[in-house]
């Protein structure tokens, strides 16, 4: 004996026990519901080729069928658009990397000739020639840094395999010393940082980029950076806070995009590559990075490392 879902009356039946013993439908309804289940399965498997044919009953099942058809169409369009966009992005990244690689050698020649020119001309201090040469040196250095950034971004997918045990306190100390961070900022590590299992060169790159980013965008006389760590059951969370200008909500969403440049960034000689590289590295490891910020009140860049 089973309960009929539409009448709530018990009915005698000799059918084979179904997967849902409390629900009995007429064969047509049963078929329509099974088609809907199949359709959901197909959509879940990203197969959008199936379309449900609504009956002429104009009932709730037809409404569900129509909804699924529309959902499938819209998802199909979104998946196709995303795939096109991914492909264009990959091509753009490849083009930028190839171009950067090709520019490396002529740029090295230019840098060499500028030095040669300076040595030959021996410009007087404060002269126009010295001013022009300094401008040339500054511009070529910016270009070298841009090319280096693009090449580092492209490396991140292939060179991340080797992981090792790393003491984050030591890594921070190394970066602070090698990059002379204390000459540009006061840095405080507020609690003992954890020991993690990660790829060492790329973790150094992440930390170096985040610290440099804080210094580069500082609008205060003294750039103050505070590093702290938090922990939950599965992850360590590393937080790097600064006393800089902070970010508007709209910029927080775009800050990790490749070649992103907002007004502030272009003013600060940034190429929009450093944070994209950081995100790319962390994405590759399945880790997360985000920024917490209030405009005018500094920013905190947070990233995770699995325990």
């Amino acid at each position, binding site marked *: 004996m089973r309960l009929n879902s539409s009448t709530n009356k018990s009915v005698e039946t000799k059918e084979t026990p179904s997967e849902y013993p409390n629900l009995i439908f007429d064969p047509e309804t049963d078929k329509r519901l099974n088609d809907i289940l199949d359709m959901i399965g197909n959509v879940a498997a990203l197969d959008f080729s199936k379309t449900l044919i*609504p009956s002429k009953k*104009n009932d*709730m099942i*037809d*409404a569900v069928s*129509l*909804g699924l058809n*529309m*959902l499938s*169409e*819209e998802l199909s*369009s979104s998946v196709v658009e995303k795939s096109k966009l991914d492909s264009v992005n990959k091509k753009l990244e490849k083009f930028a990397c190839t171009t950067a690689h090709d520019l490396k050698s002529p740029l090295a020649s230019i840098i060499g000739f500028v030095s040669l020119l300076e040595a030959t001309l021996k410009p007087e201090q404060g002269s126009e020639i010295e001013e022009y040469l300094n401008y040339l040196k500054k511009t070529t250095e910016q270009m070298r840094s841009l090319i280096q950034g693009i090449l580092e971004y492209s490396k991140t997918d292939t060179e991340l395999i080797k992981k090792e045990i790393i003491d984050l306190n030591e890594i921070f100390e190394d970066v602070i010393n090698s990059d002379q961070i204390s000459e540009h900022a006061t840095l405080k590590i507020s609690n003992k940082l954890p020991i993690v299992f990660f790829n060492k060169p790329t973790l150094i790159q992440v930390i170096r980029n985040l610290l440099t980013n804080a210094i580069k965008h500082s609008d205060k006389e003294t750039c103050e950076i505070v590093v702290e760590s938090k922990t939950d059951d599965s992850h360590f969370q590393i937080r790097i806070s600064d006393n800089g200008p902070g970010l508007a909500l709209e910029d927080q969403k775009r800050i990790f995009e490749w070649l992103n440049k907002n007004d502030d960034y272009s003013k600060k000689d940034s190429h929009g590559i450093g944070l994209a590289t950081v995100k790319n590295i962390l994405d590759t490891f399945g880790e997360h990075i985000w920024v917490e910020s209030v405009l005018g009140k500094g920013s905190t860049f947070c990233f995770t490392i699995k325990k």
Partner: protein
Amino acid sequence: MYRENNKIKFTLKDGVLYTECFPKTIMTLEDGKESTRISAEMVNYKPLPLLCDLTNVISMSQECRKHFSGPEHASTFSKAALIVTGDISRLIGNFFLGFNKPLKPTKLFSNKEEALKWLKE
């Protein structure tokens, strides 16, 4: 002013364009374009508030929804109130607002008086 084709009735009254489909209407891209053409002619190519009753629509193709959310159709109305009184019309209305994102202010209503009040705000 009143016009109709095989699927839609168009009425222009008190500065509002009313559209209503005949029962069990299936809207395709061609129907959408035809609707835009007639609407544009009726409002004399100057956008007016639109009250569109979706109650009798039983299906609307993706291309048609896209067309109704695009610039060509947006040139015929200043804001649009969609009347949805059944499961299917409400579904179509929600998809239209959620996925297709019309260019001009558009809201769903189950009540014509409330819709008119909003259109005239």
